[in-house]
């Protein structure tokens, strides 16, 4: 069995199972905690609260105007990084294939050149974010091993993906194996580290939007 | 993407032409011959066509019929040859740019010449015999 066979076979299966167990575990352990009902008269109807929750899932992606000046760099880097990552994952032809194989959905891919350029930008943003995390006093204070590990587990697939696209350093087979393995490492890490925010963000923003709609508070 | 590809082609062709110029320089200065194996380079069809066009055509075109056809053509730059060898089935088995006063393969080989001398002697003798018998 070659490294690629392992990555595409048993490795992928293990990663998926760990991912599913971890996601369900973490989510249920959070959501099954005791919820106290809110009895005060709401400013919004239940539907309005749900709409508020749904709206905040999107609206919090764009910071308020008055905040933008102070967090400009953070917005710039994280936007490039997140939009870049999304574009790579959902625009790259091989990635669409994987999704197609898993759930049967498919759409038109972006040209490879475009994906490679975006990957480069994403990578640059990631490196800048790491430097900022190390240098900026606030981020350094807040940062834990989780932050750096998570960075690494996202960084590796991006790097191996770029190397794979150019087929530099090693052959396609080796690079493909490393790329898939790095993604599997990320999948395994996802439920246990900060990467989980990619999933939690919906619940977290949705909850705040729901609660704030109840109070009519600023969103 | 097509534009990008042709741009990359142009770059490769330019690089190859510079290499050819360097080789020709060595032929002029030191009498060194050299060749480039075009099939050993990652060149697209369009790139090869482009290169062939840039080198142009000179005064000599030689066709060789030895275990399949070959075509050896002087380019617009004397001393630079465009050569292509095919096998008996007509498929290209080698394509080169040769930098030489004349491609080596055109020179008659001593062993072949020795053999032809023997054959020639036979032919001559036969003719003389016929002429003598007529007289």
């Amino acid at each position, binding site marked *: 069995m*070659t490294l*690629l*066979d392992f990555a*595409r076979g048993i490795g*992928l*299966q293990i990663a*998926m*199972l760990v991912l*599913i*167990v971890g996601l*369900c*575990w973490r989510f*249920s*352990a*959070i*959501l*099954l*905690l*005791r919820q106290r009902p809110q009895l005060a008269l709401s400013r919004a109807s239940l539907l309005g609260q749900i709409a508020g929750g749904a709206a905040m899932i999107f609206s919090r992606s764009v910071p308020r105007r008055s905040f933008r000046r102070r967090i400009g760099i953070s917005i710039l880097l994280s936007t490039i990084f997140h939009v870049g990552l999304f574009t790579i994952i959902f625009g790259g*032809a*091989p*990635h669409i*294939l*994987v999704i197609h*194989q*898993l759930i049967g959905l*498919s759409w038109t891919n972006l*040209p*490879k*050149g475009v*994906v490679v350029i975006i990957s480069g930008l994403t990578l640059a943003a990631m490196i800048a974010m790491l430097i900022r995390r190390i240098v900026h006093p606030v981020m350094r204070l807040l940062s834990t091993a989780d932050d750096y590990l998570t960075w690494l587990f996202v960084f590796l697939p991006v790097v191996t993906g770029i190397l794979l696209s150019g087929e530099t350093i090693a*052959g*396609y087979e080796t690079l*493909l194996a490393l790329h*898939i393995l790095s993604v599997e490492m990320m999948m395994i890490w996802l439920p246990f580290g900060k990467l989980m925010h990619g999933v939690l963000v919906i619940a977290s923003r949705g909850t705040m939007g729901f609660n704030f709609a109840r109070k009519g508070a600023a969103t | *993407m097509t534009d990008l*590809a042709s741009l990359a082609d142009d770059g490769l062709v330019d690089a190859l032409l510079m290499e050819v110029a360097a080789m020709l320089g060595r032929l002029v200065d030191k009498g060194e011959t*050299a*060749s480039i*194996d075009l099939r*050993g380079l*990652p060149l*697209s069809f369009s790139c090869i066509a482009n290169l062939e066009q840039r080198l142009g055509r000179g005064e000599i075109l030689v066709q*060789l019929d*030895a*275990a399949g056809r070959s075509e050896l053509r002087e380019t617009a730059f004397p001393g630079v040859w465009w050569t292509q*060898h095919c*096998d*008996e*089935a007509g498929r290209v*088995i*080698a394509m*080169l740019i*040769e930098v030489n006063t004349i491609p*080596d*393969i055109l020179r008659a*080989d001593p*062993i*072949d010449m020795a*053999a032809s001398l023997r054959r020639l002697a036979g032919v001559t003798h036969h003719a003389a015999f016929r002429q003598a018998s007529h007289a």
Partner: protein
Amino acid sequence: MVESETLGETLQRRGFSRRSLLKFAIAMTSSLALPPSVAPLMAANLARARRRSVIWLSFQECTGCLETLLRSSSPTIDALIFDFISLDYQEALMAAAGTAAERTLREAVAANKGEYLLAIDGSIPTKDGGVYSLTGGRSNHDMLMEFAADAKAVLAIGTCAAYGGIPKAFPNPTGAVGVEDLVTDKPIVNIPGCPPVPEVLSGVLVHFISFGKLPDLDDRKRPLAYFGTTIHDQCYRRPFYDQGKFAKSFDDEGARQGWCLFELGCKGPITHNACASLKWNGGTSFPIESGHGCIGCSEPDFWDKGSFYTSLAGGSATGWRNAGLAAAVGIASGAAAALSSKLRAEPAKPRPENKP
């Protein structure tokens, strides 16, 4: 042994000029990725070279490899090279049979001890004492070990000889292995492919005959000149891959336009072979040119790497049943964690009052 004539003499006798030999040498240096300036030397060496004894043993195989090599295009010098090597023993081709054949074999080995090339096609069964493939009552394993001992080098021709091939496919009932798993003290050249590209074998032989040594090999003992790149690297459809233009089915517009077959399971990117440059049937075509993806037949265990039609991007994901099971385990664990947290956290809190 009688001193045989040189290749130069043979060619001359058959009416091939020295130009033809030089031309052949030019083509061979190109094929072997040697610098063009080596061609005159190769031609001179070939002209001086004398016959080499080759002993060819067939093990667990289908004779496809041999067929391919025998049917290589036109009667050119390639063919002559095959003529020129002295195929002293090849069961399928030789006229002699039975004990006469056995005698030929012994004589050839004795006469060329340490100098002959041993060519193998087919894999070697190792299970149950190798009983699954015997020649004259002797196991393939025994014969391989015996004749490899006095060989100059061993050529493993075809994927079966190189890596075990289809006989080794799951569940490998005969315990099939490739030559390199058994022979460890001799130079080995793997020429994998199911079947292998015939020009590769002639290239290896020409190199061996003209320079007296084997060509440069990669880490899988394959001639670097032919296996140094992947099908994907040399594929004429590569620009479509780079542009992200893929055929989605074998009869869609993309397929008609000749777009990349990656999504239809082409294994070109992980397959090292020379099909895309040398092509097949006298340079006519190769599978991708005919509209089908590469199946990766020259790679180890190609038969067991999932469907030929599953793209390389994916993998064998876990089934819905396992996913469901995993989800259940996750939720149960999460619920247990939440419960234990509740128990740990619960203070004796006053109940909210309903009456003022």
